[in-house]
């Protein structure tokens, strides 16, 4: 069934794909990426168009990240406040919407302190490593069929490679500050992120196995008949839970915020950072949260793909009415809210409990899950396949 909407272009051709030896027919969304457009322009010798795409894409990304940071700071404070029977920012603008802008300007104008004993170069570089890791992960993020920067063939591997990049910033920041609390925080962060990377990747591997591809767009398209979180007899659900826990740990957010641990380490790795540099850490943390949510949505909740139920054509048609961007934003917001909910509810784990959770619980669970997932894939027994 073809539906035409000005917001997106359903494909004009249908294709047949095979999942688990079963023929599944469906309409395919036409995926366009920024990189593809630039490439196309370059092939057509249209350098102006390529430049516009390049510059526009860069500007749009930076603007989107900044805006997202502001919105998230506001959202976090409001969500926290309402969890805690308060109102949150109210005085700056309507219901305090300008609060993050005031915070941003203030942080920008704050005195920039570099401690005398600190390693100046690394101290200055550290926040940018965090930011860099964040931007690299944005590269492969499929926001909607038409909004993606580059659709790498090995997108998942790329993502796994760069998601550990932020830890360099944390480690360098903690080490170069020449403060024992920072050092402790950095060491905790390194141990934590290295450990949880394992389960995170294993959880992603399950999805890769199901969809038979490392490409983001194909992973999403493989969920056209149903999201992986519920389509694979609990395997997807377990993988999703492992992914959520591991990504909260990767994000250094409560209940895994040991590397910051305000009541233990007085701020941890960013104890000595002030002003703009601290703001960058802050921004990286928030954007990373969005990215983790977005990738959770992509891998387990179908990304920008609408909610489809097998061959229920009428139902699917109604769902298709909702534009993919909205689906993506909705799923991501739900995940972000989930992360905030965790943060304001759970106490913090202890450092040895953190390690025990990963190596004694999550890792075995994800390994077994991977095996069961392999069995499911081999038998080809899915819901709504």
């Amino acid at each position, binding site marked *: 069934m073809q539906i035409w909407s000005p917001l997106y272009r359903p494909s004009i051709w249908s294709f047949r794909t095979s999942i688990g030896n079963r023929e599944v027919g469906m309409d395919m969304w036409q995926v366009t990426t920024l990189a593809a457009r630039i490439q196309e322009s370059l092939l057509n010798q249209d350098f102006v168009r390529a430049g516009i795409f390049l510059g526009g894409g860069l500007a749009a990304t930076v603007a989107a990240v900044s805006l997202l940071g502001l919105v998230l700071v506001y959202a976090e404070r409001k969500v*926290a406040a309402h*969890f*805690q*029977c*308060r109102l949150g920012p109210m005085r700056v603008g309507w219901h305090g919407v300008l609060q993050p802008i005031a915070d941003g300007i203030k942080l920008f104008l704050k005195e920039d302190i570099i401690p005398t004993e600190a390693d100046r170069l690394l101290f200055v570089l550290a926040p940018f490593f965090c930011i860099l890791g964040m931007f690299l992960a944005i590269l492969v993020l499929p926001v909607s069929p038409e909004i993606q920067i580059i659709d790498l063939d090995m997108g998942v591997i790329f993502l796994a490679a760069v998601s550990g990049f932020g830890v360099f910033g944390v480690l360098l920041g903690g080490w170069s500050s020449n403060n*024992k*609390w920072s050092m*402790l925080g950095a060491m*905790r962060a390194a141990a934590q992120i290295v450990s949880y990377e394992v389960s995170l990747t294993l959880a992603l591997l399950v999805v890769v196995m199901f969809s038979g591809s490392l490409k983001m767009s194909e992973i999403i398209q493989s969920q056209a008949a149903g999201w992986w979180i519920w389509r694979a007899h609990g395997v997807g659900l377990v993988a999703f839970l492992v992914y959520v826990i591991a990504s909260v740990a990767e994000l250094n957010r*409560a*209940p895994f*915020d*040991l590397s910051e*641990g*305000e*009541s*233990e*380490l*007085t701020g941890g790795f960013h104890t000595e950072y002030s002003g703009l540099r601290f703001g960058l850490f802050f921004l990286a943390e928030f954007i990373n949260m969005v990215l983790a949510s977005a990738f959770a949505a992509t891998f387990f909740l179908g990304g920008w793909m609408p909610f489809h139920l097998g061959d229920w054509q009428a139902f699917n048609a109604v769902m298709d009415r909702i534009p993919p961007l909205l689906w993506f934003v909705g799923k991501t917001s739900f995940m972000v809210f989930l992360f905030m909910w965790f943060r*304001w*509810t*759970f*106490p*913090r*784990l*202890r*450092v*040895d*409990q953190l390690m025990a959770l990963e190596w004694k619980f999550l890792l075995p669970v994800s390994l077994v899950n991977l095996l069961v997932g392999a069995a499911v894939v081999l038998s080809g027994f899915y819901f709504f396949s």
Partner: protein
Amino acid sequence: MSLEIRTLSEIMNPPQTADSPLSTQEYFVNMGPQHPATHGVLRLVLKMDGETIREVIPVLGYIHRSIEKMAEYLHGRQIVHLTDRMDYLSALANNWAVSRAVETAMGVQTNPRIETIRTLICELQRVQSHQLWWGVLGLDLGALTSFFYGFRDREEITDILEETTGARLTMNYIQPGGLMFDLHPNFVPRVKAFIKYFRPKLDEYETLLSENVILQERLRNVGVLSAEDAIGYGATGPVLRASGIPLDLRKQQPYGVYDQVEFSVPVGTVGDCWDRYWIRIEEMRQSLGIIEQLIDNIPDGKFMEMKPAAKLKLPAGSFYLQIETARGSLGVFLQGTGEDIPHRCHFRSPNFNNLWSVTKTAVGGKIADLVAIVSTLDLVIPDVDR
């Protein structure tokens, strides 16, 4: 017998030798005086090996306000306002302790109304203190929301007490010989409404924190203080009771009208942080029970037995009286010489004595364990330093 006076810097900077272990492994970290987990300006010097604590050296005195020296210049009645500022979370119990000491020294008898009111408001403040402790425990362990819930309910009691005593925190309400003012007419209905409001909230507390697996993991078998050590380190109050000693001055040496009410004393078995946690939660329930029993039976009578302006001549002799505050037994020592100012006034602070078990229980644990231990000891640093 040897006698050697040391300094802190000598401990922190030992002479370096070739095979000194400090040069390779261990290092010192200052926790405090400004640290969110030390509830004020307690400074803990930690000798660390990686994340593991090898030694804890509490360093006090960052809020030593010389209250004992000041008390040597003040009348018995004037000392009361200083005690508000020692353990400000159980200010009324502190007032009562000094008042009891002065009354005992001077042989003043108080009527049942005064004693009932004193018991009532002290129990209210015990609930209030434990509410704050519960909130701050959550904050220390990283669950911020409990902090707000605790403070939200604390405000209710603050309002009730403010109506009667005229102050939110430093009440200065219980005086030698009686009370500053009579009860506000709103007191009884508002306390009843509060009990009705707070009982469900207490169950909510349990849902939010007590039933949380992470919290239980953080608290169970952490900072185990054996009964022998607890007695040896002079611990009192919930800390001692968590170690399995059912010592509560309200039962043991009843004062006020505690002998006329029924309540039970929760006692722990292991002596870990978890025992200290649920003992305080249970004490809140017991205190609510005491208040319920007393609130309808406040006898009539005067609220002050002595003339307000009377100079209090303390007879020669030493007097030591104890009160069970929210944190343990607060002792007041008064040495009279027949003058109106005491020759020596000393406070046996429960926090000071509870603090030192840290040096034993935190060793071998992680920093996070130390935070949990300090939090469940429920220290008020101005009371430690005085």
